[in-house]
């Protein structure tokens, strides 16, 4: 099964890497975004403000990580799957000798290859250009990576659930925007979550999205104790289980009732 998923991932990555020029543009785009964030915060810090005990270098690092993680977390299968449902191509995909979830997980990993390339290059270039704070320790860096990998799985099932609503609504674009909005607010993508009102933080603590950006970056800085890191990983494990079961349930429900578009 794993070999099949890898084969699909490779195929998808190969197709993505065919558009190398696109990747280059993405990297440029992300670097400009980072520059904008850095300049804004530079202006704020120049006023002599001290924000939440973060140094300017830390804030710079925060945004370099945010923007570099954005494709890794955000380039999911939502649009691909939604589009496939809308134009009926999903019909073909339901006929593969491999489960629907495995197939799309393969696609997700394929997308991750491109996103990883873009993210890592953006990160390295900006690190050189603007300077960054290094991770607290090798252990913290590894924990940072583990939490991100688990987040990718959480987001995968979250996206599967959202996309399957296209079976009923045929809406693709709206759902993509909804997903983006939810993730960018509750993950700390827009600003560190400590800048938000307390009730937003409470919701964010409950939802699994702060583990996409905010928590791993804090782990990177060494702000979380080992026990808190363990708690984070357990929380992610629970969310993965819940979303997985929910996604399967919706899929089995949908597959019985759908009339697939086209022909």
């Amino acid at each position, binding site marked *: 099964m794993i*070999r*099949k998923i890898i*084969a*699909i991932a490779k*195929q998808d990555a*190969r*197709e993505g890497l*065919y*558009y190398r020029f696109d990747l280059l543009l993405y990297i440029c785009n992300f670097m400009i975004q980072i520059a904008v964030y850095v300049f804004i915060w530079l202006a704020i810090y120049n006023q002599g403000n001290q924000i939440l005990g973060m140094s300017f270098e830390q804030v710079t690092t925060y945004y370099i990580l945010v923007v570099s993680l954005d494709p890794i977390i955000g380039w999911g299968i939502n649009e691909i799957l939604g589009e496939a449902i809308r134009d*009926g*191509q999903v*019909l*073909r995909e*339901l*006929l*593969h*000798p*491999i*489960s629907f979830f495995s197939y799309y997980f393969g696609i997700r990993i394929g997308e991750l290859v491109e996103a990883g390339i873009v993210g890592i290059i953006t990160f390295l270039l900006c690190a050189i250009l603007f300077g960054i704070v290094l991770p607290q320790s090798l252990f913290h860096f590894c924990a940072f990576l583990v939490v991100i990998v688990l987040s990718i799985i959480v987001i995968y099932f979250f996206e599967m659930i959202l996309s399957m609503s296209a079976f009923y609504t045929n809406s693709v674009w709206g759902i993509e925007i909804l997903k983006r909005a939810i993730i960018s607010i509750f993950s700390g993508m827009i600003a560190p979550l400590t800048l938000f009102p307390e009730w937003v933080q409470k919701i964010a603590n409950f939802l699994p999205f702060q583990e996409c950006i905010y928590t791993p970056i804090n782990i990177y800085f060494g702000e979380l104790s080992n026990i808190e890191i363990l708690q984070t990983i357990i929380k992610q494990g629970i969310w993965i289980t819940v979303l997985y079961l929910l996604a399967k349930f919706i899929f089995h429900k949908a*597959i*019985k009732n759908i*009339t*697939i578009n*086209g*022909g």
Partner: protein
Amino acid sequence: MAIIEVKNLVKTYKISEKQNGMLGYIKHLFHPKYREQTAVNNVSFNIEEGELVGYIGENGAGKSTTIKMLTGLLTPTSGSVIVNGLVPNEKRIQNNKQIGAVFGQKTQLWWDLPVIESFRLIKKMYEIPEGEYRKNLKKFTEILQLEELLDKQVKNLSLGQKMRCEIAATFLHNPKIVYLDEPTIGLDILVKDNIRKFIKDINKEKKTTVILTTHDLKDIEEVCDRIILIDKGSIIYDGEKEKFKDIYGNKIIAEFVVKNKTKSVTLETQEEDFEVIEETENSLKIRFNHDKLTVINIVDSISKYCEILDMHVQEQGLEEILKEIYRGEIIRD
């Protein structure tokens, strides 16, 4: 035992009834009305291993719905489908391993990659043994003339080239059953011939069961041995292709080139047992039932009114027969 058993299969859809205009849409939003429509109505048939079956009917007759239920993509409202011992909509993935399918414009080829890459992925997904894969690829490449296409990106292929590759992809894993939903739509005559020959060859060699839906009856004439004709959700004919023609199409069309016509043949022969379809100053087109009359009889009757220069006799093809069935001109027993 039959490889496909379909018993009392029914599929009804809920169709939302929308009224026109903005107000209608808003009404629908809060108080949707549905009506039920039966797409497939109590259909039963058995298909044996190795059969080449043409599944035909007008647009909207229920063909695609039946095929989707056979592949497990739709759940029947009632009735049962068993494909090689499996219930497809319950054991979809297991069933997927033993079938192949081509659905109109849907594709299993990867748009931006060379064709061969898609084939390789299929090999991995279906776990086709290396030797078997090579053997099939070599053979398919030969029959479907894929040599120059394999290294091309799918997006650079013409429709016909793409379909040839698609067909090859579908048969690569030696499926026991293949569903082809309009595989020849929009293709030129050479490609069509190519694909038909391929289907026949593979069927002969591997005893692959093929169910073909098409609007091109040449496909049926050349490929299939058996016809299942569905109309408004019900089967109205199921049997051998040749018998179908016997039952419905015992008619012959004779075209005559004539001169010196003295009277209108249509009017003069109204009492006779044949039918004049077309009449001009220099030509006549007559249809008659071969059981009752012979060409000689026709020649005898019309030569009273004109001089026959030339004639051309033709058995009524499947296409004409179907046209008449669809128009309701032939009433079944």
